[in-house]
């Protein structure tokens, strides 16, 4: 049996050279993300915006979306977003946060349940009050920031500051691009999205660390090789692994998108996009950043090299 070979042996792609293409592209995209963020904004779910979400399934199998919309809007709780989703006649209704605190939110649920309980089965009801949603925003942001700081410190100890900076630049890039995905698709941004972003942070670093691990090794081995060449070699020699791991991850996520059900579809889509971005950025963003940071300066004193040599014995 002939085995698959996605990446041929001994590739010699001039990866860092392509930054002339990759950097303007990433910069333009980042600007677009910023503009979209300020103009369109994220489609915050009720976790962060507060309000009420109800998912119902028509007992008859055929939801009357127009009638539901009309009834829901007649409650006087402001504009109600009614949408059809999935395939089994599911509807979702989103009520905005009601003025009048927590008790007012509960009134929405009571009224909607009473109005639709006959023809529909309530599959999901979520209400988030104004205080809780504020705290969730804080906790989410804090989580992402803490994760980045934690990783920065770890990489600083394990590698060099320069490599740590390169990895973090790549990670920030991936976060920005993923936010762009949320902005462009207007996919709902909720607690699960924070989980997706933190997972992407982890995956992004994972990708970068694999390349940088090689960079570190090559720096020790070839003391005089020009940095651009050395970085190219780092990426090329890990290229096969990068391709295979990305593919397995993408395969798993594709299974999740198509078979995981509507409740998890958003998460899976974001992760799918994120994994592709991470693969791209580890090669074309993080690695070329090292060109601008003097990676040979103060590198690896003798002590560390000895330890390394010992470890190999």
């Amino acid at each position, binding site marked *: 049996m002939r085995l698959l070979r996605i990446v041929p042996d001994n590739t010699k792609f001039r990866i860092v050279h392509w930054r002339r293409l990759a950097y303007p592209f990433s910069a333009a995209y980042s600007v677009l993300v910023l503009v979209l963020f300020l103009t369109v904004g994220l489609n915050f779910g009720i976790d962060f915006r507060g309000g009420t979400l109800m998912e119902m399934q028509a007992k008859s199998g055929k939801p009357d979306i127009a009638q539901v919309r009309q009834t829901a809007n007649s409650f006087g709780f402001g504009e109600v977003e009614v949408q059809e989703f999935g395939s089994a006649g599911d509807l979702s209704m989103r009520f905005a946060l009601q003025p009048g605190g927590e008790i007012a939110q509960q009134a929405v649920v009571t009224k909607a349940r009473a109005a639709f309980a006959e023809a529909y089965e309530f599959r999901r009801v979520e209400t988030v009050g104004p205080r809780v949603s504020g705290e969730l925003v804080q906790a989410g942001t804090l989580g992402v920031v803490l994760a980045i700081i934690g990783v920065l410190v770890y990489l600083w100890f394990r590698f060099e500051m320069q490599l740590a900076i390169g990895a973090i630049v790549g990670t920030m890039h991936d976060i920005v691009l993923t936010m762009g995905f949320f902005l462009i698709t207007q996919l709902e941004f909720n607690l*699960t999205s924070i989980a997706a972003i933190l997972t992407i942070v982890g995956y992004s670093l994972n990708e970068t660390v694999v390349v940088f691990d090689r960079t570190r090794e090559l720096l020790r081995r070839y003391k005089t090789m020009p940095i651009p060449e050395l970085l190219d070699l780092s990426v090329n020699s890990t290229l096969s692994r990068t391709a295979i791991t990305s593919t397995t991850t993408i395969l798993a996520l594709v299974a999740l998108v198509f078979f995981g059900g509507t409740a998890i579809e958003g998460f899976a889509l974001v992760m799918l996009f994120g994994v592709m971005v991470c693969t791209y950025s580890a090669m074309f963003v993080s690695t070329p950043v090292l060109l601008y940071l003097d990676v040979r300066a103060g590198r690896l004193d003798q002590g560390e090299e000895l330890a390394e040599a010992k470890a190999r014995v």
Partner: protein
Amino acid sequence: MLRLQARKVILVLLVLVFGCGLAVPNLFSPETRKAIEQGAPAWIPRFLLPIHAMTLGLDLQGGSHVLLEIDRADLIRSQVTQLRDDVRRILREERVGLQGGIGLTPRGVQLRVPEAADRAKLMPKFRELAQPIGTFGAFGPSGNQSIEVTENPDGLIQLNVTEAGSNERIRRAVEQAMEVLRRRVDALGTTEPNIQRQGLDRILVQVPGLQDPQRLKQILGETAKLQFRMVADANAGDVDMLPSQDQGGQPIPISRQVIVEGEDLIDAQPAFDQRTSQPIVNFRFNIRGAQRFGQATTENLGRQLAIVLDNKVISAPVIQSPITGGSGQISGNFTVESVNNLAILLRAGALPAKMTIVEERTVGPGLGQDSIQAGKMATIIATVLVILYMIGNYGLFGIIASIALLVHVCLILGLMSLLGATMTLPGIAGIVLTIGTAVDSNVLIYERMREESHLGRSLVSALEAGFQRAFATIIDSNVTMLIAAVALFALGSGPVRGFAVVFILGILTTVITAVTLTRMLIALWYRWARPKALPF
């Protein structure tokens, strides 16, 4: 590294088989697990029995998650009122007159005592009101006082509830409220409700598999403070105007003096009035309540007695005859459902303060079941795709990676069962994701072997170098992932936390399977097949 020690192999296999075996109880029904636990001889330690299974999160088994917050302002207000009463009592006992009465401030009271001699009498008494805040135990008293008393030279005395004092009050109120809520939820007859404190002033109530979450909320949200008071003359002093439910919310004058309160009830049951067939609640008092109630009904024959629940008058019947037996009934504009709820509330007792629902998440059982099905489907398809792809790339070594992958998934499930962790929908997504990322360790090792072999090393040397060189990379890349996962665990809540648990366990098990199982399988292969080159 390619030498195999029989002892080591057996040990590794035992650990892995045991780890995977931990996942087996999930295949049994809860009844079967219970039967095993009861049927097993007592000398077997419980943790060895196949009875530990994962709990399904509310998003998978269906149920309600309700977060309640205690009303701080309400509590502080009652603390201040109590403080005012205490101060008034002390003034009376010490026979000190006041200039301008006792003033209420947001966090306390103030009064003006011009005479220094009076102040000298009062201050020690006021200071006695302050109690040390109890963080007794490991750290001893913390030295904080519940009330801060300040005396100004111009005669102004201020008594303020301290931050520590109000926090202590909130802490105690939340503890009390948890007890009350537990009794209320238990009365609904649901299985395994989970009630826990969150932060200082919140309580999380999780009730799985509930048919009617609306009813749960009705029962949780009510304060249920029951009082028996007399209907008074509108012009009399010490009267509250309270809305009356049986007269369409019209306010009626009710005396401030409370005859008996809900805490003196020992039982309350829903019933039907024999004459009118209206739903009512029958109740019984304890001895103290029965005495007071008997006395009040004897003294006030022919007058109206108001039954007040949460500052609303449910009904105000005329006292026809003295009620000395210690039992009675509450009638009003009730439905069968509302008397059932009221009886539960009265039996469970009143909440110490008003509580509001700040977050609610309810998932119907149908959606949960669908999610489980979809999750299983996605897991199986992801596994098959990844296995096919790995075998396509690496042939025999792909099979080894696939075995490691399957063991990895079983280990995650096994560890989650052992820890009694909760599997949520994001958790299932986490499993599917780790199916994609777990093979990374194998890929790193294999690619390194291939590289080393291209550099002209012999097969044995390439295999060894592959493991050794890839190991540092595996550790580094997994630790960075682990940091992100731990941040997620620390800050996430509910379902997201379920994802973080899976992710963290997944990272640990993939490292373990890569360095032990993969290595062992390759060594076995080398020993039996005596190959001359890598099979890929």
